[in-house]
């Protein structure tokens, strides 16, 4: 009996010893990679949550829609008024149109300029846009979409454009105006004449800034702000479109050269 007890204790001690060894090595939990693809059976709440994430994140929507008195209409109450924007157009259809083809209908008092949500660089896919619509409907209204909802734009977005891997065109061959367009500068800056929008016009920026200042204001927009403009907006927008991830030094040079050559009216 005594032997059995000793053996029993010996077994427990040896096992404890190996358990202890197991605790001494670095402890790390590895989680499966986060799913980029959206499941087909998301609940409405989940859709709203994902939509909010897109609107505040890679959709870069808040750069323009989030500012009070900003360039684009506020989204605060969009769920309540979307159905009445265009006569005969349902809420979902309207919201879909304003995402897929935003410049077709412009709210009174605003200027066109919003990029298409399903194209580069935002590149949302159909499912993500459905989530965005759910989020928008939730702003002052109640969502009616599900992941199965189809509208006249369904199928327009490339199947797997999402995931933040923006398929930027072979960037190195872009010229100045193309770069300005690719990175959505035109959303906030005018280039074809004086007049300020969210940001100051670039029409004559070459007169106001030298190349070094242009580099700085591109790479660190908040370092020196033009008087009267809000900080943080340009940085957030450029982050959102992936400017800092994608722009090459060659592109930077092209862009700065182009901007420096903008002396107004030439």
């Amino acid at each position: 009996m005594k032997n059995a007890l000793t053996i029993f204790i010996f077994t427990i001690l040896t096992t404890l010893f190996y358990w202890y060894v197991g605790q001494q090595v670095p402890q790390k939990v590895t989680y499966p990679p986060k799913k980029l693809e959206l499941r087909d059976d998301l609940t409405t709440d989940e859709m709203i949550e994902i939509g909010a994430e897109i609107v505040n994140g890679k959709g870069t929507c808040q750069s323009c829609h989030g500012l009070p008195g900003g360039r684009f209409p506020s989204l605060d109450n969009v769920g309540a008024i979307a159905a009445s924007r265009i006569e005969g157009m349902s809420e979902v259809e309207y919201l879909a149109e304003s995402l897929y083809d935003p410049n077709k209908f412009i709210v009174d008092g605003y200027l066109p300029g919003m990029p298409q949500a399903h194209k580069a660089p935002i590149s949302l896919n159909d499912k993500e846009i459905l989530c965005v619509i759910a989020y928008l409907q939730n702003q002052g209204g109640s969502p009616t979409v599900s992941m199965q909802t189809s509208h006249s734009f369904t199928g327009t977005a490339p199947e797997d454009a999402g995931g933040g891997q923006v398929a930027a065109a072979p960037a190195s061959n872009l010229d100045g105006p193309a770069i300005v367009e690719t990175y959505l500068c035109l959303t906030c800056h005018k280039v074809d004449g004086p007049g300020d929008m969210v940001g100051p016009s670039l029409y004559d920026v070459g007169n106001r800034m030298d190349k070094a200042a242009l580099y700085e204001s591109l790479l660190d927009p908040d370092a020196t702000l033009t008087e009267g403009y809000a900080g943080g907006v340009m940085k957030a927008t450029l982050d959102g479109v992936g400017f800092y991830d994608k722009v090459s030094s060659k592109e930077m040079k092209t862009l700065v050269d182009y901007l420096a050559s903008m002396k107004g009216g030439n």
Partner: protein
Amino acid sequence: MKKKLPFYLIATVVVVLMLIALNHLWTNWDAARELSNALAEKDAAGAPMDDGGTLEYREFPVIGSRVLVWMIAELHLMFAAFVLAVPMFAVIIEFIGYYTGDKRYDDLAYEFTKLLSTSFSFTATLGAMLTFALIILYPRLMGYLVNIFSWTFLPYVLLFFAEAGFLYSYYYGWGKFSPKVHLALGIGLNIVGTGIMFIANAWLTFMNSPAGVTETGALISTWDAINNFTWMPINIHRLIANVAFGGSIAAAYGAFKFLGAKTDEERAHYDWMGYIGNFIAIIAFLPLPFAGYWLGKEIYAYSQTLGIVMMGGTFSWLFIIQAVLIGNLFLGANYYLWVSMERIEGAERYRKAIKWLLASITICFIVWATPHSLVASIEEARKMGGAHHPILGVLGVMSAKNTAVNVLILTTYLSFLLYRRGNKEATHPRASLLKNIQFGIFSVVTIFVIVLGVAGYFVDATTRIGFSVPQVLSVLFAMISIAAIDVFLFRNAKSKGEIKWGQIKARAQYALFFLAITFTWLMGLMGYVRAGLRQHYHVYGIMEDTSAHAFTPTLGFAAGVVSVTVLIFFALIAIVFWLSSLSTKKKWEPKDASDDVYGLAEEARS
């Protein structure tokens, strides 16, 4: 006959239950195929199935589905390994007894076999539990696997029947047949057992390295799915590891009986049994690192990603734990031999060698346990210039590890050689020449192994991997040639004394327990890494785990699960030991009223 009835009953019930379970799956054949097709249509991202309400997972309360299946599978595996291993060496020992006519061997083989019948029932019960747990908790995965492996379940079940037949006729037929017939039964038992293991291995290796299916998981060929990349390496690896594990458990049984023995005769017998069990374990253990190396290489070949997850990524620290376990195994095996040399008259001559053998083992242990990238504070890391130590980093790679393990094997072999020579003095006319030849072979091989290890740093990876082959072959050559010379050298050797069986120290027996526990723990750990490699996949790259248990837990958590499993295993093994010792117990007789009713005197004596 009465005594045997429970075993038959349990085994039959279990097999019937398994048949019912399989039948349940087979009747849902069409559903399963649909499921598989639906999976095939899914895109590669592997989103969960939307197949109209079929459950993908059920949750087991408290410990969760994963830990439950994990522990049952591991326990099933441990018992299965034991049940497959014991017949292998039982038949060999029986054959030695038959060949030499030494009755002792025949008795020993029978004693090993006695452990089998209860273990077999436990294996089957745990297997049934595992099947149920998987079907209930992981219906989607099981549906898919059943579809892939459709017909393989039939031979599996049939072989299981044959296994039961062979096992019980081998056990109960001991001494009832002519030795040749009985040996044939034993061989049949081994063949059937190996077949069962091969089939089961096909299922699980498929999950690690799927083959025979399209990229989306649709079945192309069941045979290709069986014969996947890691199937054969796992088969071989498990076959050898089972013997090592089974030997160590048998040795632990010897130790258990030794410690409880009451007479010198019993002590002598169980001392010898422990020695033989340990001998089997160590002999099987020596080639195991190479089989493991081949398995690792095959995993690397199947997918570089999987290989790096294993050796460089999430699991790299697991192999440091493994190094501690294996270092302990070598240390423990040598320790047992050294302590048991005390009961050999004449072995005092070799005592001086122990410190050198120990030094060699310690150095190799350290080399093997040295990680490639070290845990360091920022300040320490700055001094080293990164997580690599410029000197120690050299020890962290394959060349050093391979060399260390080869030297460990040579050292252990040397310990064994000295043990064998303990009480013998060669009378061969050319004894000194032969000894010099042995010494020459040994030193040349050792130097060769080390030189190759060092050279490994100066050649490209493919050549370096190639170096492991001559290293292994030279070690094998040394072991075989030295053993062959030994046979001549000690023919008609003069005895300097006898081996006093039964006078071994108790701590040597505890070393046997230590080895058995370490083997079991190691098996649990390596089982974890094989399954854990798949990370968040059920079937690697094909069927994703979308349950709440998809994450890979910390190694500390895994160590906890393995520890608990090992303790449960030993609790069950204690039952096996106890049951098999019942057969030698005296018949129960009603006690005299005047006698000590509670058996206190018996207690006091023990």
